[in-house]
């Protein structure tokens, strides 16, 4: 069931990787939604399943070994998982765009940046003449702050930050409704990070694009996101507005994450990391995946799979103790 404001609705998505060394349970029954024009942050550690989710939406999961076991990805009234490849291609780059993590390797080294932007414009605007395509490509370059004169230059002639801008230009060239950004600033210096994020936000507001921002950096989340989803071991364990998550975190993992950020105002003797490691995705524990590391865990936590529980209209959490705590309030 889709809400009028909802743009993307992922329902019960389950993706596994079937390898020689065993099955990797990358995503297990993941559900979340992105509303029109909003930025949803997806936070998680490396290996939690963020990239698989991002690629899953656009059906870019390498298959073999990836297999979509279950679920629906509703976009504009259609289940993307039911479309054929030709139909998916019409969506990629024009309705939904994606930018990847490492700008240094995400551009084709033997094509000019201009050609790489023109390519996506051409693919989705068959009626455009060559001049119109080039014009649009130039316009996109200017929009990301690069002089259009440089469109005949090659990627190696640009710095990391500028490469990322080119990638953003490519992603937004056809005015997509949704932009999936997989850790767009992780590979960049902190100062460049800020500039790139500011630019993305400005463009997104101008073009009314929604964004699924994937990151492990809570600072980035705090500055850019409207809502936040926390993913752990292939499951969403908490989702809510920015305020909900940062001011009233309920899941012990979320609390741990926020608690482990070094603070400028508090005096502490030591950092407080979360003990232990995320479970091996080929060998997930039954019940709550975080229970082995959780200091509040009780027997019931590992007994059966835990469902998401709604605290209010926007805030949901997958934890029986948090549920009780909230019910008590």
């Amino acid at each position, binding site marked *: 069931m889709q809400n009028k404001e909802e743009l993307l609705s992922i329902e019960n998505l389950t993706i596994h990787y079937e*390898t*020689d060394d065993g099955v990797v349970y990358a995503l297990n029954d993941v559900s979340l939604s992105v509303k029109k024009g909003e930025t949803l942050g997806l936070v998680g550690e490396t290996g939690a399943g963020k990239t698989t989710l991002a690629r899953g939406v656009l059906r870019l999961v390498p298959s073999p070994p990836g297999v979509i076991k279950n679920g629906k990805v509703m976009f504009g009234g259609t289940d993307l998982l039911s479309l054929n490849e030709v139909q998916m291609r019409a969506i990629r780059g024009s309705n939904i765009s994606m930018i990847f993590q490492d700008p240094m390797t995400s551009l084709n080294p033997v094509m000019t940046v201009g050609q790489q932007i023109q390519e996506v414009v051409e693919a989705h605007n068959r009626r455009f003449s060559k001049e119109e395509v080039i014009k649009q490509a130039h316009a996109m370059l200017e929009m990301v702050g690069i002089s259009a004169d440089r469109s005949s230059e090659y990627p190696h002639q640009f710095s990391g930050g500028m490469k990322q801008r080119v990638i953003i230009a490519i992603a937004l060239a056809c005015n997509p409704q949704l932009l999936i950004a997989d850790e767009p600033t992780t590979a960049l210096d902190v100062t460049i990070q800020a500039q790139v994020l500011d630019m993305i936000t400005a463009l997104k507001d101008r073009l009314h694009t929604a964004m699924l921002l994937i990151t492990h950096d809570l600072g980035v989340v705090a500055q850019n996101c409207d809502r936040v989803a926390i993913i752990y071991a292939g499951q969403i364990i908490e989702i809510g507005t920015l305020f909900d998550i940062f001011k009233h975190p309920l899941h012990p993992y979320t609390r741990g994450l926020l608690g482990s950020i070094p603070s400028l105002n508090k005096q502490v003797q030591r950092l407080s990391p979360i003990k232990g490691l995320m479970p*091996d995705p080929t*060998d997930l524990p039954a019940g709550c995946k975080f229970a082995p590391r959780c200091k509040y865990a009780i027997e019931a936590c590992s007994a059966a799979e835990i469902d998401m529980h709604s605290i209010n209209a926007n805030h949901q959490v997958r934890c029986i103790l948090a549920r009780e705590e909230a019910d008590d309030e």
Partner: protein
Amino acid sequence: MSETEKRKQRTLAAETWRRFKKNRLAFAGMIVLICLVLIALSTIVIDLVTDKAIYDAYVIKQNLRMRLQGPSKEHIFGLDEFGRDIFMRMIWAVRYSLFMGTIAIALSTIAGGLLGSLAGYYGKVTDNVIMRFMDVLLAIPSMLLATAIVAALGTSLTNVLIAIAISYVPTFARTVRASVLTIKDQEYIEAARALGASDSRILFKYILPNSMAPLIVQATLGVAGAILSIAGLSFLGLGIQPPTPEWGSMLSSARAYIREGWHITVIPGLGIMITILSLNVMGDGLRDALDPRLKK
């Protein structure tokens, strides 16, 4: 101990061996190679023990009345143009190709490895001089170089060995140099130097052991190439001389009698191909097993 923990505890060599074993083709190649080595060794032993009696009686002895007879129950590979038993000649031929190829490559590896390490480690002028020299050697196609050397110096076993060894030196020098360059800049080398280790100690204890992987792969493939070159030279009459059995020279004499029977043409070539195939398959398997990125 869970599977993951067990996996983390294996050493590099053990891990490489485990991955290599999983590759059934490469493993089969290794088995074939071991059989060939055993055959070669046993012929050496037999010759020593019988004072070459068997060699003279079966491998060289001519029997012109029965020449060019096809495969039969007594002579499973048939007889050649001098009436010699091809099967026995094939068995005795193994050691020349195999051992000469190995020795030539061993020499080449040592010389090339040394030059490559010096070039990579000391850099600048040393590097330039050594690599320019390697470029010169590489500019001459290896078969031509080997032929020229043998042509000039004569067709003895030693000369063939030298010729082939020299033609492979640049390949090994480059491989080792590339490894050394990568490792040289790693931090543990800096750490060793900070602790006062001498140049030669750093080279031998740290750099060389870590450069072994690509070198071993190249060496395996190099032996295959060397065997091919030896066979080629012998085919042209520039390598091992008859009546000593060698696959290439056997093929050469077969040329004149190509119409008389398929066995004299097909069988020696098959011998070369199986040997080289096993080596190539092993070399490929080693390369895959040593490359941490490759996953099936």
